[in-house]
């Protein structure tokens, strides 16, 4: 940390710059040159952000913002859930790919963020993946803005197709609400994979499918029951009751520290099928079932390898 003198010098320089007729933020940026490097970068970034000088892509993804919240999720990844990742290199380093995973964590599914962390930390050539999110989350204040800035996109085949055509890595959770809303007693039992829409998109864009098994997400908010009245009042698809929520209020939102394992499996290449194969219902169901079985198998395997749930 710089001493008080460095800070005083800095403030004096800012004032000098402003008096010389500079924009105050620009003046701060220039004055920061005398500060130690780390602080200098921070000042410069804040100044640039306040002036609106940062990049957003057409989806509203803001890489600087995503990097800024990275440490929080890094803490969850490293210390809270002690995630072990396998097979991150199966995700192609270039070009499009569709990551298909099981979905769990009734109150707030963290699986997409943890998969993002796994890729960013374990992949030799990391890049930010995008994830499809339940529509309902996108009408909520704060959550919708946050999700969008870190790479979330409303679940719609149009969006998925466009992202893949732009050669992005896209994460989907075909179980959807059926996956997150299942009771604790049915944990790690895969639900129906929608109508296979993800296979259609993959066939149309020629993207390989990477099945992903996530173990640990089921125990973070064990769903014991649900409140129909609350769901009706808020318009939510369901409102879970967990051992801590809503009994402990905001404290009930703290997820339980289960141990996690994430396994990326070998990609399923669909290159042999032409884009028109997306119309072939039989093929779509077959591929969908193949992906589902792979994930289910890997889930059981990783459950055994994880051993104790919390320790």
């Amino acid at each position, binding site marked *: 940390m710089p001493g008080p003198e460095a800070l005083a010098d800095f403030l004096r320089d800012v004032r000098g710059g402003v008096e010389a007729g500079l*924009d105050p933020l620009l003046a701060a940026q220039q004055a920061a040159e005398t500060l130690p490097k780390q602080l200098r970068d921070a000042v410069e970034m804040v100044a640039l952000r306040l002036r609106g000088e940062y990049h957003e892509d057409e989806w509203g993804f803001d890489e600087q913002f995503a990097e800024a919240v990275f440490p929080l999720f890094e803490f969850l990844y490293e210390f809270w859930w002690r995630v072990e990742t396998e097979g991150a290199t199966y995700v192609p380093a270039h070009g499009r790919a569709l990551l298909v995973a099981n979905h769990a964590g009734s109150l707030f599914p963290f699986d997409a963020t943890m998969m993002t962390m796994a890729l960013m930390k374990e992949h030799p050539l990391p890049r930010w993946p995008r994830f499809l999110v339940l529509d309902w989350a996108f009408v909520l204040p704060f959550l919708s803005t946050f999700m969008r800035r870190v790479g979330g996109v409303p679940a*719609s085949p149009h969006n998925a197709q466009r992202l893949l055509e732009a050669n992005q890595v896209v994460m989907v959770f075909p179980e959807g609400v059926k996956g997150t809303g299942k009771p604790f007693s049915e944990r790690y039992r895969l639900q129906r994979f929608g109508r296979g829409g993800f296979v259609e998109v993959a066939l149309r864009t020629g993207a390989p499918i990477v099945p992903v098994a996530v173990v640990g997400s089921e125990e973070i908010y064990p769903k014991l029951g649900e409140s129909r009245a609350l769901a009706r009042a808020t318009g939510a698809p369901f409102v879970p009751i967990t051992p801590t929520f809503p009994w402990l209020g905001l404290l009930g939102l703290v997820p339980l520290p289960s141990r996690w394992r994430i396994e990326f499996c070998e990609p399923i290449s669909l290159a042999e099928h032409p884009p028109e194969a997306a119309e072939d219902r039989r093929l779509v169901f077959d591929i969908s079932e193949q992906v589902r079985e792979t994930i289910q198998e890997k889930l059981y395997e990783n459950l055994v390898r994880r051993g104790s749930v919390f320790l």
Partner: protein
Amino acid sequence: MPEGGPRRVVITGVSSHWGAELARRLERDPSIEYVGGIDSRPPSTELGRTDFIEADLRSAVLSRLLPATRADTVVHCGILLYPEPGRPPPALHEINVIGTLQLLAACERTETLERVVVRGSAAIYGCEGAVPYLYTEDLARRMPLRTRFQRDISELEEYFANFARRHPELVGCMLRFQPEIGPGLDSPLVRYLTLPVVPTQLGFDPRLQLLHADDATGALEAATRGSVRGAVNVAPSGSISLSKALRLLRRPAAPIPHPLFGPALERLGRRLGAGALYGDGVRLLRYGRGVDNRRLREEVGFTPRFDATGAVRDFAERSESRRVLPSVHPGTIAERLAGAGR
């Protein structure tokens, strides 16, 4: 199919900003022998060789006037996106829907006609939280039509699509414009963005595509000269979030819980002369809307000069000197304090 470019053009709604801009551009082109302008009131700025015809679009007299001009191209700029002085909200439905119907009826009587271009609105897609992030033209009416204006636009598009189907020999082009910005514009959204403190909706940060005014006129002109059929989105590439736009414009945001946003804006707007937002303005500033401009670029052959961020940047630069009210952005305040201490 029409051969060559347009020669005799009639612009309805020529007294509107966009009608007058288009007329001015077409006047300069010697290959266009006649430019006619129809509106119910004279243009506010002087036009050159444009032949001004005073007529109300809603009246049947149009069916007599239009064939007499022997026009080969009709550009409909008479669709109002928001109420204006002398044109209150209830009149908008009449002007937009009935006016378009009368115009199409008059077009059927005009034997020399080759193409009809309508300056419509991307409001037909609505503003929803969870949607395709970049609408293509075929995705209209997927969402419920929530506001009166949206229903009007949808209705007149339907009439226009039917008209185009009945007359395959004509080129019918429906342009769906995203909201425009420019220092010379006097629209509710521009007035909103130039408020000294801009109220926003707490927790929401909509993705917007604000179209540069020059690109808006350019796209209209390109569509008039081209022969593209069907709906075409007119929007810049990319998108910009409201928070970033306000930072570029050096306008501090005042977040208000979203149920209070509409009434607050109305009250604040009346006091500052900005006026309320009309139609889906409130929803636009909550959820935003993005459309795909591939058809405009590849088929009409017009690439907007500014992308979404560029348009806001240019607007910020050019409206800097026009600031009437003092700015309260932290940056400018510090500047002032430093100046006072000298």
